[in-house]
């Protein structure tokens, strides 16, 4: 049945070749080096740890039993809480920027987007390090705050949850702005004027016309911030203390400090469950429009 559907494009230079000729190389590469490793990590959490630091040959539930350690609920809750707050803050800051950029004059718009893209392309490690330079205990900022008497001698600007949150928002903010801007650029701002003419307040028009109009961009921004945030590792590692460790830090510790790969694999499986299953489900059930097929759909 479905085979008889005529192809949507009238002429393709590749028609004589099979679909597989184009698809095979990238598809198989991603199967072998992306899908297979993700599956393997789940299976390897069921292996015995080798004393040398690798994977043993015997199967065992040891790694999963070790997850019952009382530290893990604390870590998991902290990971979820910090990621959700950081995502909410990113969206709240990104929306006005996208709203403004979406209707700005072309010249201002391109300058604005350039200014946002540059930090996006800047080395992630350098951006986190920049905050360390700024916030370090002997740094200029803390000294200035001390001399104004705004903070106590005992107050540190680093190694606390606020700083981890601040740097998370800082690093993930461009990931929220860019998809929102892409959606706002296609939004018809005339609809807002129409809503105002019909008696809506500015805030009402924003919430009930603009937000639904860019809903796809909102979803993309949500995914682009929340999921990487759940996997944060470098930020708590460099600006947080032992009390700010997230799931990612534990994965790295089990891998590099304890050299217990099955335990690290079990933690990774947990993170996959928390971070990736919602996306996979969205892909399977909601069938999001592919960029190629996207033509002004508002659903």
């Amino acid at each position, binding site marked *: 049945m479905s085979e008889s559907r005529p192809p949507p494009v009238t002429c393709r230079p590749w028609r004589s070749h099979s679909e597989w000729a*184009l698809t095979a190389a990238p598809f198989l590469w*991603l199967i072998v080096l992306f899908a297979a490793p993700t599956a393997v990590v789940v299976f390897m959490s069921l292996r015995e740890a080798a004393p040398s630091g690798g994977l043993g040959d015997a199967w065992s539930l040891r790694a999963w039993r070790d997850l019952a350690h009382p530290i893990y609920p604390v870590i998991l809750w902290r990971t979820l809480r910090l990621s959700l707050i950081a995502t909410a803050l990113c969206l709240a800051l990104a929306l006005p920027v996208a709203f403004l950029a979406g209707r700005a004059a072309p010249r201002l718009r391109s300058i604005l987007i350039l200014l946002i893209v540059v930090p996006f392309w*800047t080395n992630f*490690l350098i951006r986190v390090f920049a905050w360390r*330079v700024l916030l370090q205990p002997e740094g200029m900022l803390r000294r200035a705050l001390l001399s104004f008497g705004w903070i106590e001698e005992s107050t540190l600007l680093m190694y606390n949850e606020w700083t981890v949150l601040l740097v998370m928002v800082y690093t993930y903010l461009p990931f929220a702005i860019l998809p929102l801007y892409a959606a706002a650029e296609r939004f018809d701002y005339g609809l807002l004027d129409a809503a105002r003419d019909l008696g809506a307040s500015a805030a009402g028009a924003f919430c009930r016309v603009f937000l639904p109009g860019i809903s796809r961009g909102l979803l993309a921004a949500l995914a682009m911030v929340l999921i990487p945030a759940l996997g944060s590792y470098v930020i708590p590692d460099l600006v947080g203390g032992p009390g700010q460790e997230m799931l990612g830090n534990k994965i790295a510790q089990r891998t590099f400090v304890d050299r217990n790969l099955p335990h690290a*694999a079990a933690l990774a499986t947990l993170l996959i469950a928390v971070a990736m299953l919602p996306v996979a489900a969205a892909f399977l059930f909601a069938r999001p429009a592919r960029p190629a097929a996207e033509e002004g759909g508002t659903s």
Partner: protein
Amino acid sequence: MKSGGLPALVTGLVLVFLYLPIFFLVLNSFNASRYSTAWEGWSFQWYAALFQARNRDVWESLRLSLAIGIAASLLSMVLGTLSALALHHYRSRLQQAHFTLVYLPIVMPEILMGISLLVFFVSLGFTLGLFTITLAHITFCISYVALAVLARLQDFDDSLLDAARDLGAGPWQTARRVVFPLLAPGILAGGLLAFTLSIDDFVITFFVTGPGATTLPLRIYGMIKHSKELPIINALSTLLLTLTFAAVWWSGRIIRRHSFTPIR
């Protein structure tokens, strides 16, 4: 303009927020103070120190990063372009799965990709090092190239293909003389993005590296962790920032100069 005040204010604050730490970093790279605690006058000593013999490791790491970046971006340009062409031209269950495979690596937390690849390589008995890093980098770069080329294909005027056929071009000739030249800016922009991502990657590389393969981000991380040579990291970061600016500007020019005339 109605309700223009609040968005403009937030945008201004966001820009200050985005550039404040970067500004301090650049400023401190010219600071004579060893610990960046206070301003002690202009100095180029940290840039000079980068070129001293004791920091030869940094340049060794840069060379390694560049080699991996070039290899990863070239291969991912080929694979990503094939992927985009397939996704654009066919609608099937295979392409649905293909698109999921291309999209997921972009949202997957880096640490998950790192630990999965590490466990995968270890269970296959691979020696960790240059080779495994390059394989990992190609894997996460493919998606970005594919999406960049796919965006370009969306603006592609399919009637050009009909025109080429009417003028007697065969499929191969059409691909080489019509499709490729029109897609080249998209492929190049995707490749440039892949190159930057590869040069910048820390987390995935950290997991799949082996003895001796210390890329530049791994080197910088080690220096930060051991609080060694901190002002030199300022200088190095400033140089890398300048490179990033140049890359963004250049890729923007490529895209703008070769953009299609809007027909829609």
